[in-house]
């Protein structure tokens, strides 16, 4: 259609590019603001670029907050959560997919599926009470474990494992391969793309999670990055916008790098659920 009509082509690309600019502009604004002084951020009319680059903002964040620790918390928690969550989804998905004769299989599957729609917010109150009872407020287990068993993840990996022919497993059994070895040496390598997809989604979701860490931590050193930033934003007087923007940039850039590196997997993971589910 483009060759027929050059104007259509130009309009077409102008629209697409405008969309991309709208998508990306706030990021530019965040980075630009992170190098401005506080006075510059709240100056009117606003300037596109900082007058002079204020590297100090980045240094000062570490004085206002234990931001190194906050970054560590976020990465550590997201990594552990991803590892746990994906692993138990893979073993569970394998069980539900390939042991079709096991009594209770349908019941378990239905039970897990039926809870897929339940949002975390609905569980926050009882989970908070549970965490308080076992003394896990301000602890890593409380940040990592509660949402590791996701019906969505189990379902996604089960679907993928369904596609592996049973013959492959039977052949391994005949060769005398144990059940656990079958899982680790045959199934896991085959489902790597799905594991990578689910893993990146889990990592992103957990790294960006706000509601649960907000509830379950109240010491600054246990905050994850979103809670730390929200705390700066929530200050009554003199909100340090320049520090907030520097902190936001520092937390966003690593995630963008991870996204660019794994984008193929993230996109396949998100569309997998839509096309099969």
């Amino acid at each position: 259609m483009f060759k027929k009509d050059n104007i259509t082509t130009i309009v077409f690309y102008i629209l697409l590019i405008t969309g991309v600019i709208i998508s990306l502009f706030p990021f530019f604004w965040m980075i630009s603001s992170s190098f401005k002084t506080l006075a510059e951020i709240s100056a009117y009319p606003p300037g596109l670029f900082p007058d002079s680059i204020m590297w100090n903002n980045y240094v000062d964040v570490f004085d206002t907050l234990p931001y190194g620790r906050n970054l560590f918390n976020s990465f550590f928690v997201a990594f552990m959560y991803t590892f746990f969550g994906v692993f138990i989804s893979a073993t569970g998905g394998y069980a539900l997919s390939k042991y079709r004769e096991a009594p209770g299989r349908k019941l378990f599957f239905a039970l897990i599926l039926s809870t897929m729609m339940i949002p975390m917010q609905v569980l926050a109150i009882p989970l908070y009470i549970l965490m308080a009872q076992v003394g896990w407020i301000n602890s890593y287990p409380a940040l990592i474990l509660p949402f590791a068993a996701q019906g969505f993840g189990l379902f996604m990996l089960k679907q993928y494992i369904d596609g592996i022919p049973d013959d492959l497993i039977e052949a391994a059994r005949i060769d005398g391969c144990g059940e656990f070895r079958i899982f680790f040496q045959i199934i896991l390598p085959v489902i790597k793309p799905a594991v990578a997809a689910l893993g990146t989604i889990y990592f992103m979701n957990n790294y960006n999670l706000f509601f649960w860490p907000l509830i379950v931590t109240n010491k600054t050193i246990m905050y994850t990055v979103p809670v730390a930033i929200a705390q700066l934003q929530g200050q009554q007087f003199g909100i340090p916008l320049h520090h907030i923007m520097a902190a936001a940039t520092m937390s966003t850039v690593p995630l963008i790098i991870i996204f660019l590196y794994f984008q193929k997997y993230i996109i396949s993971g998100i569309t997998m659920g839509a096309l099969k589910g």
Partner: protein
Amino acid sequence: MKIKDTWQEMKENRHFYYFLVPFLLFFSVFMLFPILFSFYMSLHRWGGLGEATFTGLKNYSRILTDSTFHTALYNTTFMWLTSTPLILGFALILAVMLNKKEVKFLKYFRVGYFMPFVTSTVVVGVIFTILLDGSFGLVNFFIESIGFDKIRFLTSTTWSKISIVIVLTWRWVGYNTIIMLAGLQNIPEDLYEAAEIDGGSTLQKFFYITVPMMRPIILFTFILSTIGSFQIFTEPYIMTGGGPMQSSLSVVQYLYNSGFQQFRMGYASALSYVLFAIIFVASYFQIKIGSGEEGI
């Protein structure tokens, strides 16, 4: 005999249980138990310390007459019903555009559109707080430069909800575009080729092939948006704090305030159940309506 057979089968399939146990353990402790415990809590009055008092269904009947809850429900419904058509409409248009075979730089466009979804909601919230600021925000600079008065996006009761809708739309269009693009790529090419032979126009192809074929995907994204809308918390929490005068208070923030600021744990539990019921009913009807015509 029957029991013995089952036992035998369980033994033969014991690895099923070994593999399922880790998931099931976490699932029971952190999902099933809280669901049940939450219901128990919702029948009590409990301030977080000391004994809980059994109050029966009182918490639920109080929700029915709680005007703050009604406000929060209205706000959330408003955000849901205004943002969802915007998000899905933009996403479908973008996906159709990106699905043209001749599009160059598809990969870069896709990454660009997807970027808002990668960022944490808190970061999105703080960026838009300065972009939409009533006195120095860049958006207001544009509005003023085309000859209008500045808008107090975050501090006026009319605009606070709309500001949240703007942010939601910005964040979720790309995500839904990716899903819809994948759906479009799954539509068999021959359908369009057949239509072309029969002399179908672009618009006809869109309404008679694309839309019906995309129906399940659109339904899927609609349900996701609905569930997501009723979980809105971070955007208003960061940008407006639910104000001014509760004009952007969401159901989840009300739940949060009741539970973790006023420590009305029983009442907040009842709110959780109501929230879940709303999400459940809304998605149920969407599935019903969405699949109704095919008679599934």
